[in-house]
């Protein structure tokens, strides 16, 4: 029993330590971004929502993860490098490139001779689900952000951040004295990557196998059930890919039915922003909180419309798109180039 208590205590302390480092990382990025605003806006052409979308998209494709890029967007918003609409677009962009790594690895295996259709699987479907809903999410989000009654009225309790301020401010002072703004931005970003990785390891594993949902690889569940499962699991993991990874032990052969997978990803896409919401709260910036909240609500609205009105049609579209892309090497190459090319074009044109 004492061992168990010790393990739980150690885990909790680890989470608090990671949170502190996470806040430090956000503050470092904010510190670094402020003086670099003209350079970011000029050099990267991040001066419109479209270019911010491209920046977030390209950033997450290269960073191989969406959460650090979303956290960066909040820091840039806090540093007033980005305005609200641009931050919203950059966070949306961070979702569009988040699963790019799976696509690249799958493509490498195809080049090495592995059966093409088999190499794509879950990764390609995850990307396609996200990419097909996000045009509607952006539209809904901008409409919601434009609503005057949605002006941020939420104010964080100063006391909640006082402890962090006590620890972080002195550290920041020291770091500012020794690291230039660009270094602060880069080190802060890397620190975000490390802390998010550490969070994944510290969060207790969910054992779905012991539940009635343990047959998700074979049995067809109701879409709403799998949707809620995806949303719930991702609330705890805060990452769609980690959340999907939890399903792997449920299948002896490493498969999952598409009819379970697609609603699961739809649910996961909503609560994957939990870590970004926490980051916004830790920044003590009500605008940031509102923007992340609107992002989540927009995804929820679009997802509910699909679930209620046209899930079967949507599953069919995703299924045929995935088969079409994965079944043809040239199409797959074009798809990969588009994933990199569209954000670059948005940066250039936007």
């Amino acid at each position, binding site marked *: 029993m004492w061992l168990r208590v010790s393990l739980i205590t150690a885990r909790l302390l680890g989470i608090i330590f990671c949170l502190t480092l996470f806040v430090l990382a956000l503050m470092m990025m904010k510190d670094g971004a402020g003086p670099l605003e003209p350079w970011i806006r000029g050099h990267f052409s991040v001066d419109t929502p479209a270019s911010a979308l491209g920046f977030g998209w390209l950033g997450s494709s290269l960073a191989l993860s969406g959460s650090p890029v979303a956290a960066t967007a909040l820091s840039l918003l806090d540093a007033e490098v980005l305005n609200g609409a641009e931050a919203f677009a950059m966070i949306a962009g961070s979702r569009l490139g988040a699963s790019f790594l*799976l696509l690249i*690895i*799958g493509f490498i*295996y195809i080049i090495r001779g*592995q*059966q093409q*259709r*088999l*190499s*794509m*699987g*879950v*990764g390609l*479907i995850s990307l396609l689900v996200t990419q097909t809903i996000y045009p509607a999410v952006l539209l809904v989000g901008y409409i919601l952000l434009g609503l005057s009654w949605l002006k941020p009225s939420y104010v964080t309790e100063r006391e909640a951040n006082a402890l962090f301020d006590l620890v972080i401010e002195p550290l920041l002072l020291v770091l500012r004295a020794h690291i230039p703004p660009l270094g602060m931005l880069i080190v802060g970003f890397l620190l975000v990557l490390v802390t998010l990785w550490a969070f994944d390891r510290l969060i207790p594993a969910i054992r779905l196998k012991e539940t*009635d*949902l343990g047959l998700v*690889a*074979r*049995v*067809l*569940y*109701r*879409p709403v*059930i799998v949707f809620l499962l995806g949303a719930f699991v991702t609330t705890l993991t805060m990452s769609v890919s980690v959340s*999907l*990874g939890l*399903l*792997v032990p449920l*299948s002896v*052969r*490493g*498969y*999952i*039915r*598409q*009819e379970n*997978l697609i609603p699961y990803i739809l649910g996961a896409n909503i609560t994957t922003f939990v870590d970004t919401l926490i980051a916004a709260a830790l920044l003590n910036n009500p605008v940031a909180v509102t923007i992340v909240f609107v992002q989540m609500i927009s995804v929820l609205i679009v997802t509910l419309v699909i679930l209620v009105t046209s899930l*079967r049609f949507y*599953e*069919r579209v995703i*299924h045929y798109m*995935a088969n079409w892309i994965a079944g043809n090497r040239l199409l797959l190459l074009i798809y990969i180039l588009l994933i990199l090319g569209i954000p670059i074009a948005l940066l250039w044109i936007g």
Partner: protein
Amino acid sequence: MGVFLLCDGSASSETAARFFLLLNYPKSTQVTLFGIGQTVQNPSVSRTHFNKIRSILDQSFTQIDEVVIGGGVWDQLHNVISDPSIDLVVYGERPAYSALRHLRLSAPLSSKLERNLDKPLLVVRNLPSEALERVLVCTSGDQAAIPMLKKSAQLLSWAHPEITVLHVMSQVAFNITGSAQDLLDTAETAMQRGTREGLHLKAAMEILETSGAFQKIVPRLRHGLVLDEVLAEIRTQRTHLLVIGSHFRVQRGRFARILTADIARDLLGEVSCSVLIVS
């Protein structure tokens, strides 16, 4: 054998009676005509209709009874059909046109029957122009499907149709580095390699072959979305009768019914051919 034929006064009931004849059940089968939607106060409609149905079945069966009970259809059905001597319930229904079925305000009777009956249910939608030749049996690929297959073999054994046993794999692979060869298998290669699906198809064929009643039994393994692949197979084979199992029966746990999708109901709402639902 005991068979209940639900008669609602429409031409669909007559079609159901004619379809039932195609199953070639023994003459000694106890057939009960159950009048639904009728009132005790107005039996004349049911009398004419019953006479018509009787005339269709008279030549083939010696024991034909009639039951008319007024009141709520479902309550009466429920009380009568729980009789253990009943082996099959037959119900004639017009095919649901795709564009209109979503506009229904309430579930059709066939859907309610599918959910709540614990007897095999034959929903007749149309009559084959020739004999009942092509039957598609869909299996979920797990142990729960074995009793369904045995029951199906028993119910269809007198008709001697060609049977296609279909399992649909809609899975995709998590692990991009794994071989996942199972996802490319045909029925033949799956049975040859002894995969989970292959072993199940083998077992299914053995069960059907043991009955000795079928002209031909063909295993089929399709890959894609379950509903789409079943519909595609029906179109390709020009299936006369679709046989499916149902997880949604009254004796199944409530929690399980909340969690699992009702594929039988989904297929019932999509296909235009007749459907035999076996629990």
